[in-house]
C-alpha cells in the first residue's frame, strides 16, 4: 500500500492524489491546453478566411491552417485531456497508486513527440491534406508517422488506466463496484483501443505508401477504415464528456445517479454500438450497399442514440433530485433556477449538456439518415454539427472540469474569477451561433473545406444566394465570440497555474451551507416522478427532435428524383 509520501488527500475536496498520477495528470492537461491554443489560433485564421467579407488567408495557407486546426483540436487537445481524465477516474477515484508510472511517462513522451512531429510537418506546408488525408492525395511521411507515434503513446495510456483498475481491485482499495464515472471512463478507454487499432490498420500502410513501399491504397477502403479512427475518436469524447457531466453533477451537487443500472446500461450500449458511426461518412459513396449503410448509420436501430438520450435525462435528473432534497422543491424548475449559474464548473457542464443534445445530437442523427445525407454530405452543415458536439459538448465540458481541477489538482486559486464566471457563456454561445449558422449555410449548399465561396478564377460561374453570404458572415461573428471565450479559458488556466495564489493545506474551503429545509423534507417530485422538471425538458427535446427530423424528410422529398 502507498504510504503518505506517495499520495496526498486534497483538503478542499477530500480527493486522493497519487504523486505519480498527479504529475501525469498535470502534464497531460497542460499539453492538452497548449494544443488547444495552437489549434484555436488556426481555427481563428480559418474562421477569418471563411468570413466572406474578410477572406484573410491565401488558398494554400488556408488549407494548411485547416489541416492543423483539425488535427490539433480533434486529436491532440481532446486525447491529451482524456488521458488525464483516465488517470483521474482510475487512480484518484479508486484511491490507488497508478500502475506502471514509467510506462505512463513513456506514453506521454510518445504522444508529445508524435503530436509535435505532425504539427511541424503540417507547418512545412507540403501536407495540406486535411485532418482526413484521403488517398490518393498524399502528405509527407512525417504527417502519418507523427500520428502513429501519438497513437502508440495514447494506447500505452489506455493500458496504464486498465492496469490501475486491476491494481485497485487486487489491493481492495474500494468496496463493491467501481464508481459510475470510472465505468464511463472505462467505456471511453475501450472505444479508444478500438479507435487506435483502426488508426494503426490504416495509417501504417498509408505511411508505407507515402515512402514508396506500397504502390496503391484503395480510396474507398481507406475511407472505411480511416473513419474507424476519425469518428470513433469522437466517440471517445462522447463517453469521456458524459462521464465528466456525471462527475460534475456529483462534485457540485453531491448528486447520486438516479439509477446505476440505467446509466451503466447506457454506457454499455456505447461500447456495443457507438463505433458503427464511422458509416456516417460513407452514406453517399459508391460500392456500399444500402443495407450496410442503414444498419451502421443507425448504430443498429439507434441504440447508441437511445443511450445518449438516457444520459441526457439522468444527468440533469440526478441534479434535480439532489436540489429538491436540499429544499429547492417549488414548481417544475426552482431546482434549475437556483442552480449555481455563476460557478463555471456547473454552467460549463450544463451548457455542454444542453447544446450537445439540442444542436449536436439532433443534427448528427438527422444528417446520418441514409437518404437525408444526400442533401447534407460535405456541406458546411457537417462542421456545424461537429462544432456543436466537439467544441461545445466535449471542449466546454473539459473546460468546466478544468475550473474544478485548478484548485484541487494544481492547488491554485483561479485568477480573474469574474472572467471565469462568464467564460462558459461566452464560449458556449459563440460556438452555438457558429454551429447553427454553419448548418443554415450548409442547407443552402455552401461547401465545407472550401477557400472561396465566390469561386474566383473558375471557368464556369456559380453564385450562391445572398442569404448564404449573410449566414457565413454570422458564422464569422460567432467564431470571434467563441475565440474570445477560448482565449479567456487559456488565460485563466495558464495564469492560474503560473501565478494563482497557492491553496494552502490549512485553508479549508467553507463547506456549502446546508439548506434549512433539507432535514424535514421527505417527499419531492410530482405525480410519482422524482424529476418532473427534467422530464418536461426532455419532452421539449423530443418534440424538437421529431419536428426537425421530419422537416428534413420533407425538404428531401422536394429535390430531384434519385434511384
Amino acid at each position, binding site marked *: 500500500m502507498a504510504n503518505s509520501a506517495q499520495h496526498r488527500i486534497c483538503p478542499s475536496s477530500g480527493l486522493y492524489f497519487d504523486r505519480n498520477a498527479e504529475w501525469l495528470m498535470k502534464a497531460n492537461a497542460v499539453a492538452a491546453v497548449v494544443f488547444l491554443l495552437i489549434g484555436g489560433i488556426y481555427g481563428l485564421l480559418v474562421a477569418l478566411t471563411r468570413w466572406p467579407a474578410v477572406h484573410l488567408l491565401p488558398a494554400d495557407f488556408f488549407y494548411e491552417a485547416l489541416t492543423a486546426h483539425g488535427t490539433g483540436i480533434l486529436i491532440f487537445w481532446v486525447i491529451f485531456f482524456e488521458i488525464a481524465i483516465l488517470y483521474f477516474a482510475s487512480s484518484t477515484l479508486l484511491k490507488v497508486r497508478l500502475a506502471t508510472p514509467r510506462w505512463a511517462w513513456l506514453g506521454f513522451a510518445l504522444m508529445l513527440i508524435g503530436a509535435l512531429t505532425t504539427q511541424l510537418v503540417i507547418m512545412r506546408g507540403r501536407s495540406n491534406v486535411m485532418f482526413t488525408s484521403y488517398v490518393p492525395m498524399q502528405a509527407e511521411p512525417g504527417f502519418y508517422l507523427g500520428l502513429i507515434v501519438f497513437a502508440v503513446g495514447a494506447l500505452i495510456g489506455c493500458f496504464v488506466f486498465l492496469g490501475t483498475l486491476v491494481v485497485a481491485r487486487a489491493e481492495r482499495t474500494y468496496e463493491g463496484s467501481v464508481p459510475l464515472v470510472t465505468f464511463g471512463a472505462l467505456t471511453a478507454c475501450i472505444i479508444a483501443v478500438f479507435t487506435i487499432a483502426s488508426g494503426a490498420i490504416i495509417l501504417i500502410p498509408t505511411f508505407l505508401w507515402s515512402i514508396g513501399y506500397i504502390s496503391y491504397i484503395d480510396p474507398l477502403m481507406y475511407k472505411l477504415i480511416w473513419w474507424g479512427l476519425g469518428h470513433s475518436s469522437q466517440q471517445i469524447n462522447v463517453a469521456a464528456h458524459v462521464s465528466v457531466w456525471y462527475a460534475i453533477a456529483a462534485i457540485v451537487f453531491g448528486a447520486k445517479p438516479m439509477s446505476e443500472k440505467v446509466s451503466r446500461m447506457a454506457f454499455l450500449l456505447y461500447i456495443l454500438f457507438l463505433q458503427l458511426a464511422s458509416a456516417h461518412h460513407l452514406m453517399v459513396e459508391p460500392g456500399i450497399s444500402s443495407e450496410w449503410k442503414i444498419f451502421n448509420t443507425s448504430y443498429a436501430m*439507434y441504440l447508441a442514440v437511445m443511450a445518449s438520450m438516457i444520459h441526457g435525462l439522468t444527468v440533469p435528473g440526478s441534479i434535480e433530485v439532489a436540489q429538491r432534497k436540499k429544499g429547492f422543491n417549488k414548481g417544475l424548475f426552482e431546482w434549475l433556477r437556483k442552480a449555481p449559474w455563476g460557478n463555471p464548473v456547473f454552467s460549463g457542464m450544463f451548457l455542454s449538456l444542453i447544446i450537445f443534445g439540442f444542436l449536436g445530437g439532433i443534427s448528427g442523427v438527422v444528417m446520418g439518415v441514409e437518404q437525408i445525407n444526400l442533401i447534407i454530405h460535405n456541406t458546411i452543415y457537417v462542421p456545424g454539427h461537429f462544432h456543436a458536439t466537439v467544441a461545445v459538448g466535449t471542449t466546454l465540458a473539459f473546460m468546466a472540469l478544468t475550473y474544478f481541477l485548478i484548485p484541487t489538482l494544481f492547488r491554485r486559486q483561479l485568477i480573474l474569477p469574474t472572467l471565469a464566471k462568464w467564460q462558459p457563456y461566452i464560449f458556449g454561445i459563440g460556438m452555438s451561433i457558429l454551429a447553427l449558422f454553419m448548418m443554415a449555410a450548409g442547407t443552402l449548399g455552401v461547401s465545407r473545406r472550401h477557400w472561396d465561396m465566390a469561386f474566383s478564377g473558375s471557368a464556369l460561374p456559380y453564385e450562391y444566394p445572398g442569404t448564404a453570404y449573410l449566414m457565413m458572415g454570422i458564422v464569422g461573428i460567432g467564431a470571434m465570440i467563441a475565440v474570445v471565450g477560448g482565449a479567456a479559458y487559456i488565460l485563466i488556466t495558464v495564469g492560474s497555474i503560473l501565478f494563482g495564489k497557492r491553496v494552502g493545506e490549512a485553508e479549508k474551503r467553507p463547506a456549502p451551507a446546508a439548506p434549512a429545509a433539507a432535514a424535514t423534507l421527505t417527499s419531492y417530485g410530482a405525480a410519482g416522478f422524482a424529476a418532473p422538471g427534467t422530464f418536461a425538458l426532455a419532452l421539449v427535446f423530443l418534440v424538437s427532435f421529431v419536428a426537425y427530423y421530419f422537416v428534413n424528410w420533407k425538404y428531401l422529398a422536394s429535390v430531384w428524383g434519385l434511384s
Partner: protein
Amino acid sequence: MGSAITPPEERVWWKHPLDRVEGTWIVLALLWSLIMFFMMPFWHVYGKQNLSNEAYRISPQKFQAKAQAMVDQYTVRTEVDGQYPVVRPPAGSDVYLIARLWQWWPILELEKDQTYRLHLSSMDWQHGFSLQPSNINIQVHPGYEIVTSVTPNRSGEYGIVCNEFCGIGHHTMVGKLYVTE
C-alpha cells in the same frame, strides 16, 4: 454519501427498481429510435430520393473513353471558347460526368421530368459532386463508377460545385448543367 464518483452505496445496485421518470423516458426513446430506423427502409420503398447501389470498378481511361463517346455523339454546342461541349443525350440514356483536377466535364443538358442514368467517376483524386441549388451531394472516387438514375424536377441552369477538398485549385472546380422544359 454515494455519488457518481464513489462506488455505489448499494452493493447489488442492479436490483434497484427503475424510477418512473427513467422508465417512461426509455420507452419513449426506444420507440423513437425504432421509428427513425424504419423510416430508412420505408423511404426505399415509398420515397423518390434514394441513391442507387449500382457501382463498378473502372479505370480512369475506360471511363474517359465512355464519356468521350457520349460527347462525340450528342454535343449540341460548346461554351468557354470550345473547352466545354454541351451534350444533350436522349431521355433514358446513359450520361457520363467526369470529375478531374479541376473541372466537371462536359456540360450536360437534360430534359425536365425525364430519367437518365448518371455515371460519375474521378480521373485522379476524390471529388464531391454537389449540384446547386438543389444541394444533392454524391462522393466521387477514382477507380469507382457510381451509376444512379436522376429525374430533374425543375428546369434552369445548375452549378456543380466540388465539395471534397482536392488541392489548391479546389475552389475553381465548378461545372454546369442545364435542365430544359
